[in-house]
């Protein structure tokens, strides 16, 4: 393990930024932090988790896929893919780091999504162990340890600085490049920090939330549960939950006429929208109940079915904070568990 003294944090950022683009949570003046590109003077926010999740770095809200030149009856397909430049994301929380595993399952499974893979290969993730989890946090429910997050490098805030541990080759390369700023250390300070974090985690309002009653193989038991009606009744179908969600991965593909050709792009889509599944001959999910059920069945049953039990939620709590009608996955889980959860 390596140690960085408190005073040298800015030097670390400067050293990384000299090599490659560096993004980190920065207070945006509205009480929220958002990932921002570092430049001299940028202040790293250790406050609450970022408003937008970190999935944007690998699966951006919109991206161009290819172009077409159309001339008379002729079409030329132009592959516009380019090798992505290296970048570092610093300060990713355990929940968002775990969301990358979920996105990897989707996008790196054959046939590989090369747009995603390109960014994933060039991005180095430095996670920050949670010192201040929020009241809406429940990553522990899905077996995620906020005190020991994954990522290429894991970082802990300790009393007099930061302790860094490389977990992958990419992480080792990053630490090697800034080695002049680091000193060797043992894991004592880390253990103390972890104990502190775990003590907070145990006191969180959702600390006791379990996955009892949901998961792999439960489609038949859960699909026709009458509670879907009351759970979904007030849903506006606004899609906010899907857009702030670090694991929501549905997308739309559309074309845009630039005047010089056709740009084919993809953008995030939402299963909460009425036209998501609409076809010329009809729509398999006509009601908001069906769309609402799809979203939660996907995260709590279908995704685990197809991924060895892994849930499609990381407990980041963003949807709890953002839903305009205060509906969320926690309420769904508690209701489906029929009072099993308190």
């Amino acid at each position, binding site marked *: 393990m390596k140690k960085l003294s408190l005073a040298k944090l800015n030097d670390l950022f400067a050293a990384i930024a000299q090599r490659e683009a560096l993004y980190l949570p920065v207070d945006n003046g509205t009480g929220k932090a958002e990932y921002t590109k570092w430049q001299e003077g940028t202040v790293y926010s250790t406050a609450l988790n970022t408003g937008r999740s970190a999935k944007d770095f690998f699966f951006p809200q919109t991206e161009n896929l290819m172009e077409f030149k159309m001339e008379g*009856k002729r079409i030329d*397909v132009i*592959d516009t893919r380019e090798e992505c430049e290296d970048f570092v994301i610093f300060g990713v929380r355990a929940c968002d780091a775990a969301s990358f595993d979920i996105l990897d399952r989707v996008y790196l499974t054959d046939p590989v999504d*090369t747009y995603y893979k390109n960014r994933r290969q060039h991005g180095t993730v430095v996670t920050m162990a949670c010192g201040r989890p929020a009241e809406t946090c429940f990553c522990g429910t899905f077996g995620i340890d906020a005190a020991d997050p994954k990522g290429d490098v894991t970082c802990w805030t300790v009393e007099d600085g930061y302790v860094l541990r490389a977990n992958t080759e990419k992480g080792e390369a990053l630490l090697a490049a800034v080695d002049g700023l680091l000193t060797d250390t043992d894991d004592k300070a880390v253990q103390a920090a972890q104990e502190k974090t775990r003590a907070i985690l145990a006191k969180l309002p959702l600390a006791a939330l379990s996955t009892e009653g949901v998961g792999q193989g439960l489609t038949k038991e859960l699909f026709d549960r009458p509670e879907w009606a009351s759970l979904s009744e007030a849903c506006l179908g606004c899609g906010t939950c899907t857009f702030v969600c670090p694991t929501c991965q549905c997308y739309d593909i559309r074309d845009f*006429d630039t005047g010089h050709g056709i740009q084919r792009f993809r953008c995030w*889509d939402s299963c909460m929208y009425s036209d998501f599944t609409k076809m010329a001959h009809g729509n*398999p999910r006509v009601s908001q109940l069906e769309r609402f059920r799809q979203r939660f*069945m*996907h995260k709590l049953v*279908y995704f685990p079915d197809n991924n060895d039990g892994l849930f499609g939620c990381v407990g980041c709590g963003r949807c709890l904070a953002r839903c305009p009608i205060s509906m969320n996955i926690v309420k769904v889980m508690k209701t489906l568990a029929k009072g099993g959860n308190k």
Partner: protein
Amino acid sequence: MEETLIPYAGIVTKITGQTPDVKTFRVEAPEGGKLFEHEPGQCAMLSVPGISEAMISITSSPTNKAFMEFSVKKCGCLTDWLHSMEEGQMITVRGPYGRPFPVHDELKGKNLIFVAGGIGLAPLRSVINFVRDNRADYGHVDIVYGSRSKDDLVNYDEIVGEWMHTPDFNVHLTIDREQEGWDGHVGFVPNYVKELDFKPENTCVLICGPPIMIKFTLPGLIELGFDKTQIFTTMELRMKCGIGKCGRCNIGNKYVCKDGPVFRFDQLDELPDEY
């Protein structure tokens, strides 16, 4: 690295009007030949850039080595455009997508009954012509095909000119209502299937058509003694990617684009009723 979302450009070399609202498009690579190989029942994403992209079944048999064909009903944005198109126009194609009908294993050596309604013949035609070209590998073939009227029967010329003359092929056509110049069967497909009194022994059924036709044909087949494990269909849901990633064509934990579109009815029974 290859990216499946990036399509090939192909030339539409021939357009054949089939019915008032169905046309068949022959697609070839610019250098001639097929853009890619496929198995019977697989689909491809067709697109006119700037208009839209949609999943369409490949109606030609893989044994056709010269070109691919798509039969398309005019019913939406892209299909309207395709119908207004002229020969020689390019479109884009990517694929093949999905799991085909199991012609190399479960269907091999079996008697086959094809049940189709309207444009539902398109995906089955790929299998039918594959079976014609590999006649020794399959048993007796029955084709029950119905449409609203004689004019709405897709591939009528091929059915009458070729399928009806194939050894051990029995073609049973039906239309919904009496029509001048039609002396064949009149009535809906589900009833016709029951009237034909098929025997389930060593036989598989491949069915595709409007959901209502499938819904009423299935109980008839069960009554005749067929088991759900003998009956196959192919599904259609909205798709964008074709590879199980964009998230919209799932029925329960299965994605129609990659786990389907071909399903056996006992497999469909395992999925929630949301299609």
